[in-house]
């Protein structure tokens, strides 16, 4: 995927030169390996900052919220689905956007690489499916599949669902994956085990809200966790407050989450809070045959009524 970079720079330069867009949202190299950061390019001569490789896991749709300019945006499969969701929710208009599709082969998980290597990571390079990690202790190679983000390894929408241009030909979609195996494993536990599982999972949470901030869906001007009149949830480390925060954060994403993985990626303590949104995604699929962000022509599952909506929970 690192071969996309040149085409991206050209595309961004052209769109800016032709004044088709006022800015282009893409990635530039971060200050540390595997930490590419979002960047907004406004001048054609700055297009050379742009890069693309397997460290572009942040969801760029997050940077569109309420913008009024004409924007060019690079979009992987998941970003494009969040762009669709943004358009449906009136956070940006379709005609403002030039969506530049980026067929995606998965992003690498920096935590997996850190766990499998010793010493400070100095450089990470990729060549097709081989990832080479240079550390103070030496060099180590990985197959990309071994160190991929979990959500990418079960992704079934790698190609953008909307685009005005494409950076490359579409990649084959994965069809033999079970996206919800981890949710099913928790469903199979008994009640006590499930309660204990989430106690353990959420115990390290420091309430930094990086997961919320990284998520394109979380755009409310004042989040419920920050309100004080009324105060919906305690602001401290009490286990019940942490659980309430996570329960509600997830629930606010019901029928909207694309499992892009930006939340888990952003968490400084590596909590897989995606399990909660995935449970909702799985229910949406099973109850309403709904997957978020696939089409501009369908209203979201929780936003529309159908006579055959399940109602057996109503007594």
């Amino acid at each position, binding site marked *: 995927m690192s071969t996309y970079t040149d085409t991206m720079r050209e595309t961004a330069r052209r769109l800016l030169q032709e004044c088709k867009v006022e800015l282009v949202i893409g990635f530039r190299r971060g200050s540390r390996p595997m930490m590419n950061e979002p960047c907004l390019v406004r001048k054609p001569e700055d297009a050379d900052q742009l890069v693309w490789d397997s460290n572009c896991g942040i969801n760029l749709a997050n940077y569109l919220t309420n913008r009024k300019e004409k924007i060019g945006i690079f979009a992987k499969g998941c970003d494009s689905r969040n762009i669709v969701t943004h358009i449906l929710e009136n956070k940006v208009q379709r005609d403002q956007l030039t969506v530049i599709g980026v067929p995606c082969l998965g992003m690498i998980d920096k935590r997996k690489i850190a766990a499998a290597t010793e010493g400070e990571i100095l450089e990470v390079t990729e060549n097709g499916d081989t990832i080479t990690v240079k550390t103070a202790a030496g060099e180590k190679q990985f197959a990309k599949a071994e160190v991929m983000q979990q959500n990418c390894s079960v992704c079934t929408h790698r190609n953008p669902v909307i685009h005005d241009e494409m950076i490359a030909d579409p990649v084959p979609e994965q069809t033999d994956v079970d996206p919800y195996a981890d949710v099913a494993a928790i469903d199979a536990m008994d009640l006590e085990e*499930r*309660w204990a*599982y989430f106690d353990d999972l959420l115990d390290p949470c420091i309430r930094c809200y990086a997961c919320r901030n990284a998520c394109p869906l979380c755009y409310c001007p004042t989040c419920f966790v920050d309100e004080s009149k009324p105060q919906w949830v305690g602001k401290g480390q*009490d286990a019940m407050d942490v659980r309430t925060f996570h329960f509600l954060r997830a*629930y606010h994403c019901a029928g909207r989450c694309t499992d892009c993985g930006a939340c888990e990626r952003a968490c400084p303590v590596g909590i897989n809070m995606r399990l*909660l949104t995935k*449970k909702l995604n799985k*229910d949406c699929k099973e109850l309403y045959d709904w997957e978020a962000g696939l089409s501009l022509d369908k209203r979201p599952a929780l936003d529309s009524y159908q006579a055959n909506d399940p109602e057996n*929970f*109503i007594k």
Partner: protein
Amino acid sequence: MMKNLLEFMGVEPDRIHFSWISSAESTKFVEVVNKITAKVKAIGPNQRFVKQAAKVA
């Protein structure tokens, strides 16, 4: 879906109930309330999603 997610996180299925009762359906209201109270009593006082008061030494 909200009930499903609560149960996924380990809250007892009988803890939370939904019903749709018109203001004219007084008998249904009584029935439903009786049923719910019976079910909730059966599982006992809630221990989950309860914040323990700070212990003062």
